[in-house]
C-alpha cells in the first residue's frame, strides 16, 4: 500500500445489499474515513464482524477481516489484537450481536480494555430476520414476535459499559457523517477499548427510531458543558433514560490498555523454524 491512503481504499468491490437508506451505509463510511484519517491502511487493519445486517460490513470493506459467528466478534478481535499488537483492530456488530447473544463477551471485553475499537450499529430492531424486537427496542415496540411490545426495558449499553469499567464510551448518529467520523476516530485513538454505539436507523422495519426521531431528539454533548473525563457526570447522562445524545460521554485519560498491563508487545506470528531457544530448560524443570 502506498502512503497516500484514501478512505475508498477500505471499500471492497462488493456492492452492499443493505436496503436503500439504511443507516449502515453512513456508519461504514465514517469507519472507513476514520481508519484512513488515523493513518491506517487495509493491510494493517483487521475488521471483525458479527452476524446480522451489521455483520455484512466485513464483506463491503477491504481489509484483513473475519466474519464470525453470532455474538462472538469481540473475543475474535481480542485474539487478533493480543497476537498482533501492530495491527489496528476494529470490531463491528449490531445491537443483537453485541447486547443479546454477545452480551456476556461485551462485559468482559470492556473489563479487559484491549486496545481496539468496537462499533455497534444500533437500529433497535432485528432487520435481517425481518423485524423482531432487539435488546435495545423500546418496551412498547410492536413486532411480529412481540405484538404488544417486549414489555421489558431496553438494555442500556452505556450503563453496562460504565459499570464494567469502560475507559471510552461514546455514541454517534450515522446520518451526522462528520460527527460520527470524528467520534469513531477518537475511539481509534483511545489507548484501550474504544466503544461507540452508533444510531444506525433501519428504514424497513423500525418506524419509531427513525432518522427524524434522532434528528429531533439528539443532543450533542460537545455543545453542552459535559466533561467526558468526569465519571459522575457521565453516569448522570448515561442513566437519564429520556435523553438521546451523541458524543464522547466518558473517557479515562489514564487508561492503560491490556497489552501494556501485561507487558506484551511481541508479534506472535513471528516464530523460529524449530523449538525456541532455551526450550530445553522446560525439560530440565521436570528433573
Amino acid at each position, binding site marked *: 500500500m502506498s502512503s497516500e491512503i484514501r478512505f475508498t481504499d477500505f471499500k471492497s468491490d462488493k456492492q452492499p445489499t443493505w436496503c436503500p437508506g439504511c443507516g449502515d451505509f453512513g456508519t461504514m463510511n465514517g469507519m472507513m474515513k476514520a481508519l484512513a484519517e488515523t493513518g491506517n491502511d487495509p493491510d494493517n487493519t483487521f475488521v471483525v464482524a458479527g452476524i446480522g445486517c451489521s455483520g455484512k460490513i466485513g464483506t463491503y470493506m477491504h481489509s*484483513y477481516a473475519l466474519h464470525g459467528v453470532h455474538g462472538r466478534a469481540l473475543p475474535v478481535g481480542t485474539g487478533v489484537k493480543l*497476537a498482533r499488537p501492530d495491527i489496528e483492530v476494529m470490531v463491528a456488530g449490531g445491537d443483537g450481536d453485541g447486547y443479546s447473544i454477545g452480551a456476556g463477551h461485551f462485559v468482559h471485553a470492556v473489563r479487559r480494555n484491549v486496545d481496539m475499537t468496537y462499533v455497534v450499529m444500533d437500529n433497535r430492531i432485528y432487520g435481517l430476520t425481518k423485524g423482531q424486537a432487539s435488546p435495545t427496542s423500546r418496551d412498547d415496540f410492536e413486532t411480529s414476535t412481540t405484538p404488544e411490545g417486549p414489555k421489558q426495558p431496553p438494555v442500556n449499553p452505556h450503563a453496562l459499559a460504565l459499570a464494567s469499567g469502560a475507559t471510552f464510551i461514546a455514541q454517534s448518529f450515522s446520518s451526522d457523517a462528520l460527527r460520527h467520523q470524528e467520534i469513531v476516530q477518537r475511539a481509534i485513538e483511545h489507548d484501550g477499548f474504544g466503544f461507540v454505539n452508533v444510531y444506525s436507523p433501519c428504514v424497513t422495519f423500525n418506524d419509531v427510531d427513525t432518522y427524524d426521531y434522532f434528528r429531533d431528539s439528539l443532543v450533542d454533548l460537545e455543545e453542552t458543558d459535559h466533561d467526558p473525563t468526569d465519571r459522575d457526570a457521565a453516569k448522570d447522562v448515561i442513566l437519564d433514560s429520556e435523553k438521546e445524545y451523541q458524543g464522547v460521554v466518558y473517557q479515562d485519560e489514564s487508561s492503560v490498555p491490556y497489552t501494556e498491563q501485561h507487558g506484551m508487545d511481541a508479534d506472535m506470528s513471528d516464530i523460529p523454524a524449530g523449538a525456541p531457544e532455551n526450550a530445553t530448560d522446560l525439560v530440565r524443570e521436570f528433573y
Partner: protein
Amino acid sequence: MAADFNWAVGGEAGDGIDSTGKIFAQALSRSGRHVFTSKDFASRIRGGYTAYKVRTSVDKVQSVVDRLDVLIALTPRTIDENLDELHDESVVIYDGERTTMQNVEIPGEMTGVDVPLKRLAEDAGGAIMRNVVALGAACAVADFPIENLDSALEKRFGDKGQKLVDNNKEAARAGRAYVDEEYDHEFPYELETTDEDYVLLNGDEAIGMGAIAAGCRFYAGYPITPATDVMTYLTGRIEQYGGHVVQAEDELSAVNMALGAARGGARAMTATSGPGIDLMTETFGLVATSETPLVICNVMRSGPSTGMPTKQEQGDLNHMLYGGHGEVPRFVLAPTTIDECFWKTVEAFNLAEKYQLPVYLTADLSLAVTEQTFSPETFDMDAVAIDRGFVVDESTVSDHQTESGGFKPHALTDDGISPRALPGTADGAHMSTGLEHDEQGRRTEDTDMRVEQVDKRNRKVETAETREDWSPREFGDPDADTLVITWGSNEGALVEALDILGESGIDVRVMAVPYVFPRPDLSAAIEAAETVLVVECNETGQFANLIERDALTRVERVNKYTGVRFKADELAAEIRSTLTGAVEA
C-alpha cells in the same frame, strides 16, 4: 523384568496427599527408578477420600496394577478403599496416636507400622510435616536411601528457605529412625537405585511443553477438569517465550480468541474437556470453513453432561469426528502415551498450519493426571521442526491474486491447500467468513463455486493422507492370530498385558492408533487375524464402529451438496448410471 513396587498415600482432601505423593515420586525418579503415578480423587460417597499412587521399577512402567505393597493411611477409610489391592506382605504405615486411627485394625496377615507422625513432626519443627515423617518411615520400610528424598524436598521447599528444607529433612529422618528402631528391618522390600537420570511429568504438562516447543504463542482457555493443568502449566512459562495466556469468560470466548490469534498469524491453542467442547462446537465450523489453523485440545473425562468429572472415559470420539452442523474436514489426533502427548502436540500444530484446518488433539483423564518417568532425551528440542505451510510474503503475494488484485485465500488448487497471507502482508488483505465463499473469501451462493469449495476443503484430507505418515504403533507378535486394536491412553496397559498373556502362551498383535482422522487403513491386518478386539474406555465402541466400517464393502453413494434439493429425473439418472457402471464392472 525387575519386580515392581507399589506405594500409596491416602487420606482426606486437604491432607496434602498430592504433594506428599509427588515428593515420593520425585525421590524415586531422582534415584534412577522408573515411576508411574495415578490419583484417586473419588467423591462417590461422603467425605473427600483421595489417594496418590506410585508404581516404580528399575524397568519401564507404563500402567497401574491391582497391588499395593506399602500404604500410608492417614484415615481408616484409606485402608478400606484399598483392601482389594493390599496383600499379606503389605505394610500399612499409620499414626496410632491420631484420634481417628486409635482403634484401627490392620487386616489379615499384613503388617501395621504405627509411627507417631504428628509427634515426631512437632519435634522436628511443626505438625504440618507429619506426612514427611511418614515418607521417612516409608523409606525405612522400603529400604530406600533417604538422600533421594532430600533432593525432592529441596525441589519442593527450596524457594521457601533453607530452614524449612532442613526441618523437613529432619522430619523424614525422624520417621526413618523410628521405624528402624521399633521394627528392626523385618520388611520384604528393597528399592535399588540406578545412575539413570529421568524427568517426571504428566500428560497435560507434556501437551503444554509441546505447545511452547511448537511455537504456540497464544492460549485462551476456561478452567475445567482435567484440562486445567495445560493452562496452569503454560501460565508463567509461555510468557518467557513471547506468548500469553488469557483466562476467557467461557469456552465460547476462549475458542474465538484462539481463532482470532490464529487469524493474526500466531500458533494458537485452547484446551478443554467435554462440556467445553460442546460450547466450542458452535465456532468449530467457522474455524474449519474459514480454513484457520487451530489446535483444540480435548482432555476427555466421563460424560455426558457433567458426568463424572474426575473419572476416565474416551466418550467424545463421535463428537470430535462429527460435531457441528454441516460437513467440514478436521483432523483428530490421540496420543497414546505421555511422551507422545508432547510429540503429537508438535505434530498437531504443523498439521493445522500445513492443511489450514482445526486439529483436535485429544488426551484423556488418565493421560492428563498421570505422571511418568522418561529419559530427558525423549523430549529432544533439537528434533522439533516447525512447518508453517503455504504462507505468502510480500514477494510472492502477487502470484495469488485475481486480475484486479484481490488476494485468493481460498484459491482452488490441485492439492486443496490455498495460500495464506498473514495480516500486515502488503496487498494480502482479504476477508474470511463462515459463509460459503469464493476464492477471495467473499460470500457466494453460486452452486458451482459451492461445490468447488467443498471439494477443495475435502481435497486437503486426500493430500494429507498421501503426504503424511498415519501409521499405528505396533507391539507384540506381528504374526499372531489375535489382533487387539486400541486408541489413546490404553496403550501402556495393553503393552503390559502382553507380558502377562505371554506367560500363559497367548500371542497377541497390538496396534495402538494415535490418528483417529485421518487414520491408518487396518483392513489388511484385520483380514489376516482370526480374532479382532478393539479396546476403548466407552460403552458403545465408537472406535470399533469406525474400524468395522472401514473393513466393510462400500455401498455406492449418491451425494449432492450444491444447496439445491434432489429432483426426480436427476435421481433416476444417477441410479441408472450407477447400475450401468455396476453391470459393466
